[in-house]
């Protein structure tokens, strides 16, 4: 099955987060996929709180995935990325994401998703849509229609 690499990646990610005791929420298109949207991505976005303790835990997480030191995505951005043994790089967002979404607000609507024998905290599809609408980059606009359609189908199925 073609998703074998992806499942192993998610399990390895969850194990590393658990070993580091780092509370992180999966955001972006990785969250979209885990919410059932038929999309793909080339990285994993994580939202964490920016505290001294979490910076230490992040260093442990980096060790766990055999990763590079977190590098800023750009000079203006607080977002950092880590290249490691996982199949795809990990992007770290601190405290908030586009759309005025804070860590607490995203976490309050996030869902625990079971992957293999591990668990991951995943942002709700509505929050992913809200952040992508606010970010407004071409790649966000490209994916928004299928995310909105997926949310509509999910609501019908759950309602």
């Amino acid at each position, binding site marked *: 099955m073609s998703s074998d690499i992806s499942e192993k990646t998610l399990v390895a990610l969850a194990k590393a987060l658990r070993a580091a005791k780092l509370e992180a929420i999966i955001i972006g298109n990785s969250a979209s996929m*885990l919410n*059932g949207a038929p999309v793909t991505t080339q990285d994993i976005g994580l939202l964490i709180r920016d505290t001294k303790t979490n910076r230490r835990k992040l260093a442990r997480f980096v060790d766990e995935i055999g990763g590079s030191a977190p590098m800023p995505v750009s000079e203006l951005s607080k977002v950092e990325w880590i290249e490691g043994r996982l199949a795809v790089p990990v992007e770290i967002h601190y405290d908030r994401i586009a759309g005025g979404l804070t860590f607490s607000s995203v976490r309050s609507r996030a869902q625990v998703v079971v992957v293999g024998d591990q668990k991951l905290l995943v942002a709700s599809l509505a929050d992913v849509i809200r952040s992508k609408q606010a970010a407004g980059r071409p790649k966000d606009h490209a994916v928004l229609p299928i995310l909105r359609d997926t949310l509509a189908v999910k609501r019908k199925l759950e309602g």
Partner: protein
Amino acid sequence: MFQVDAREMGRRGGLNKSAAKRAAARRNGARGGRPRDANLLAREVAEVCARLGPQLPELDPGDLRLIVRCLLLPPARRAVFLVRRKDGRYVF
């Protein structure tokens, strides 16, 4: 001539505990066993799409099928990361 009615034949078949029958029942899609997982998923996707299609007329039927399929899969099988290999090609 030995005569057995259909009900009796079915009962005897159901009571058969042969190794071949036990093995077949465990094999996905084997004759005498469970239907293939792919067939079950395809049937469930079709049923859900038939139910939801009229409620979501603005949705392209192909997109609806893709979305419903993804939603019916376990989360680990929903995720597809594109991984770039050293030779520049991409794998899933």
